[in-house]
């Protein structure tokens, strides 16, 4: 009996170790005194200090933050409007639209990158921040759409009907009732989008301009000239930031579940 209960735990331990050990190593070596990554020479914050003195990295960080903020913001608006609009069309159209709308996360990123490259060239757009924002918004919309749509599906439609009944016009009912109730889903979709955009390399490689670097791109290019522990330090910070974002998104997702359904069940 005992073995049976232990086996899954051992298995879980191995899988977790394989998955997370590399991350742990990166984190540990970001505190390494030595210049050579594979030799441990003692604990130090010097690479972090180095990192914050590197202007090109800070510029890339600012770019990444601007890019992720604007992309997740526009994805938030577009995705929410799409989800709300989809509740008002026929079921059949609805599923087709949903399928098409979620394509950007189904298509392999590299293909999406090439698509954007060709498309923007055809349009004659200058590659840079604009193209990055358009591309990132595109692949972020589905995250917001899916989350908000699920939230709307679970929402009792009598809330909006009650508002209409009490004298609210359609738009008024949307801003007073629907929006506050779906807001956690919108926010959690936007946070997820932010994290996705902040991490993206593949698509960014294709659509960025010569003088615009994002943080992941900066890391990627630095790798070609050899890994310094500075990159480890950067990765550690990005890892922590991403984790925080994902946790925040999950927390909002949990809030999501409260109050969605009608109040009847609890009384029974």
């Amino acid at each position, binding site marked *: 009996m005992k073995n049976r209960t232990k086996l899954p735990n051992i298995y879980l331990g191995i899988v977790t170790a394989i998955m997370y050990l590399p991350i742990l190593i990166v984190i540990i070596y970001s505190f390494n005194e030595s210049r050579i990554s594979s030799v441990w020479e003692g604990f130090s914050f010097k690479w972090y200090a180095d990192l914050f003195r590197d202007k090109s990295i800070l510029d890339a960080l600012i770019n990444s933050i601007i890019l992720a903020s604007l992309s997740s913001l526009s994805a938030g608006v577009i995705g929410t409007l799409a989800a709300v609009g989809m509740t008002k069309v026929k079921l059949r159209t609805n599923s087709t639209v949903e399928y098409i709308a979620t394509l950007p996360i189904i298509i392999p990123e590299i293909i999406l990158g090439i698509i954007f490259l060709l498309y923007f060239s055809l349009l004659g757009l200058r590659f840079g921040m604009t193209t990055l924002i358009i591309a990132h918004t595109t692949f972020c919309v589905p995250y917001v759409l899916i989350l908000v749509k699920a939230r709307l599906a679970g929402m*009792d439609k*009598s*809330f909006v*009907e*009650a*508002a*209409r*009944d*009490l*004298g*609210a*016009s*359609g738009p*008024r009912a949307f801003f*007073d*009732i629907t929006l*506050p*109730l779906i807001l956690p889903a919108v926010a959690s979709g936007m946070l997820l989008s932010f994290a996705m955009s902040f991490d993206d390399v593949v698509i960014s490689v294709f659509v960025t301009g010569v003088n615009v670097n994002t943080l992941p791109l900066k890391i990627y290019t630095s790798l070609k000239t050899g890994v310094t522990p500075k990159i480890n330090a950067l990765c550690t910070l990005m890892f922590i930031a991403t984790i925080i974002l994902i946790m925040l998104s999950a927390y909002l997702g949990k809030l999501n579940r409260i*109050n*969605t359904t*009608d*109040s*009847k069940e*609890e*009384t*029974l």
Partner: protein
Amino acid sequence: MDNNLILKLEGIEKSFGEEKVLKGIDLSVAHGEFITLLGPSGCGKTTTLRIIAGLETPDRGRVLLEGRDVTDEEPNTRNVNTVFQNYALFPHMNVEANVGYSLRIKRVPKKEIVKRVEEALELVRLTGFEKRMPNELSGGQRQRVAIARSVINQPKVLLLDEPLGALDLQLRREMQTELKRLQTHLGITFIYITHDQEEALNMSDRIAVMRDGVFEQLGSPSDVYDRPRTSYIATFVGSANIIKGKVVKQTEDSVFFSCCNGTGIAALSGVTLSEESEVTVALRREHLSLHKEKPENAHGFWTVIKEKRFSGGILQILLSYGDDLELISSKQGLDSDMTVGDNVFVTWNPENAVPVDLDGDQ
């Protein structure tokens, strides 16, 4: 036109896909009336209510509010408010914000809103609950908030969709009284939906018994209870006994019919039935009298007592005559010298026997 008329439905029809839910609803409601739509689930009563509220548009027919055609108007422009079945209190607003919502939309000054919310909450006896969130309230309290929210704007008509459905029996009884008190106090027309016949009989001025998208009978509670038009109504409202027989003869004010081993008599005037034709008669359980001996000149049947049940202070006696007839008699109290297996003669006052299903479309 009747000036007292507040709401009028004319030939309302509505289908959802292939299914025709409403097949021509006509209703005139006077100011201050308490009307109940009574029927089993799926009979179209909620759809009727939603059409009055403007949450659905009828395929055919008109909705007139104080003589004005509002059929195609949005719900927010109608002076009609609804208490939803699940109350639909806005979960992200506290009681005060919920109740005052319609006033905020109308841009009523803040001070006045506070005052009127206070009054409305006092009306439903929830003073002091202003800052509570809906999920901090019990079912009965939510219900009261929902009512306060709907009446604060002084609607012409208040629509209530099974408002007591989610409450337990005792609370339901209390709320019945409370609702009736409110209605009298406010003088608002109530259109009330329920599948509970007791609720309907208790509170209404008039009851519309609905079945398959039509009103099968529209009348006062005593009309519906004492003079059911169809066997469906007779059994749905107060579960009457249904006896089928053949017409033997008809006098000016009554009809004699044969059934089983005897002859029954029912009050009937204004309708002529041909001899030998089928007649269906509804007989309330409490109107049956049982005798060990056949009384002189009495009309009735011999039956056998099958079962005795005692519940809630009422004795029910199940009677039968072979497979042809089954009757239930009920009376207050336990005392009865009859036992299972006894032969008893059943009689009733002819006035209490109501011929039903006389004409399909009365």
